[in-house]
């Protein structure tokens, strides 16, 4: 397939944002182009913010500084020559205490998947995950790479307050709650790392493109 065939579809999102949406399905290769476009478009005059989504990118721009048609043309012009190889994610290890009071739903995930709780933890920690984007909460990473056999539906009753640093499984995704928040994911453990510190020079532990591994600190029944 040529690059042309995979060009993003452009759509206005209000009068000061442009959505660049790639055809399904979402793949890591497409997401790498999204990150590359985000990096490049973020330097264009008139573009205020870039917001990677899953298989898409939103550019927030100032219509007084750049015309919408000119911006769209620039996206399509830049797309085929993006330097995708320039995205070199970091490798981040996240220690997790699985189960017990830190992972109250480990037993439910084990029951749903038909695996022993320790095996759920072992397979979760064996995965190689990629951060596709941050969103939902500051520092919350949408990651790809969960083993399909660990996929577990969200809880039927979301919790009012999921503790910060909880590691969870929601459907086919895994993630870490940076802050205490309401949430419906199955909580299988907790890390000691801070995912978000607004006072730090780099406020989030994770960034798009990072490769993540979970490391078993302990497993409690």
């Amino acid at each position, binding site marked *: 397939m040529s690059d042309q065939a995979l060009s993003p579809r452009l759509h*206005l999102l*209000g009068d000061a*944002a442009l959505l660049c949406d790639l055809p399904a399905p979402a793949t890591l290769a497409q997401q790498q182009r999204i990150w590359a476009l985000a990096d490049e478009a973020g330097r264009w005059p008139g573009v205020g*913010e870039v917001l990677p989504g899953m298989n898409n990118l939103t550019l927030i721009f100032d219509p007084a500084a750049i015309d919408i048609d000119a911006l769209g043309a620039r996206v399509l012009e830049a797309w085929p020559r993006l330097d995708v190889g320039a995205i070199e994610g970091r490798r981040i290890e996240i220690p997790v205490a699985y189960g017990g009071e830190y992972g109250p739903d480990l037993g439910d995930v084990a029951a749903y998947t038909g695996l022993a709780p320790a095996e759920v933890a072992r397979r979760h920690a064996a995965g190689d995950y990629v951060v596709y*984007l941050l*969103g939902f909460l500051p520092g919350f990473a949408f990651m790809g790479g969960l083993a399909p056999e660990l996929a577990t539906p969200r809880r039927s009753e979301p919790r009012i307050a999921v503790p910060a640093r909880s590691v969870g499984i929601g459907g086919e995704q895994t993630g870490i709650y940076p802050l205490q928040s309401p949430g419906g994911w199955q909580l299988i453990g907790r890390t000691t790392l801070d995912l978000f510190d607004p006072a730090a020079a780099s406020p989030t532990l994770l960034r798009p493109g990072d490769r993540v591994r979970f490391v078993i600190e302990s497993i409690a029944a």
Partner: protein
Amino acid sequence: MTLLVEKPGPLASVQDLGRHGHRRLGVCPGGALDTLALSLANRLVGNAVGAAGLELTMGGCALRFETPTRIAIMGDDFAATLDGMPVWPCWSVPVAAGQTLRLAGANAVGTSGGGKLGLRSWLAVAGGIDVPPVLGSRSTDLKAGFGGHGGRALRKGDRLPLGATALDGAQLARRAFGVRGPDWETEAEDAADRTIALRVLPGPEFEQFTLASRDQLWRDRWLITPQSNRMGSRLASASEAGLKRRRNTEMLSSGVIPGTIQVPPSGQPIILMGDAQTVGGYPRIGVVIRADLWKLAQAPLGGALRLVPVDAAGAIAAWTAQQRYFAQVTQGLAAAGWPTPA
């Protein structure tokens, strides 16, 4: 140089024009939901437009100024008084040390001024609320718990520091004056049934909705439900059916901005506001244009909206007209010798 919160009302927080540039980290822009109101209020007290002020919700508050200063209130005034003297929206009012600004509770006031009952008010104080900026903004991120005053809504007994004002002694003490407020009416307004018209651009998923739902979006009279907050205004209409897509294809997480009208499976739309999350997974049937977001911020719970289609050129023209109005106010103040810092 402080302001004492004697009574915060239902929800009061420190806000400026928002925390921009960090959405890719998942940090929402937040800020005053009516940026025009805060900008105007700041101009009236000689502040830069981006100085931090207070966003007040449903009145019911009392603020004591412990230093001579100047204040301006925008939005609904909730029958505001300063030691018993009325304080009107769009006015710049001198304050003596020890005076108290009181806003009546929402139940205590009927419809004010122009016949509309509001929801929020924005207060600027000369020098601005001088809390430390976090990630480039003094706004309170209530959900994530940082910024503003301790990352939280204001409580009784909070003391807020005021920054240095550009006003000299004579300007601080100058008698009260007012400017023309922004036009509430638009051509699309239907004064007869007391609805607020919001102009809307079709969203990325507009075409995915059934023809009947697209028609319903423009035709229904939408009420703002009490479940609304700084994250979003939740709407309901008298129609039995909610808004439906032709096919419920899976949506991948994608960017949302204030004004985005997303439609969850219930079919009842939500118009996202400043504290909404940065990405969403619900179809976006439309986006309220920037020039009309301030009206949504002021629209009361239970108030009625009409969503009116507009094209991109119309949206830009409306924004330009609003910017022109604001520039006129700024230039008028400057011509009168009033400081208008950048």
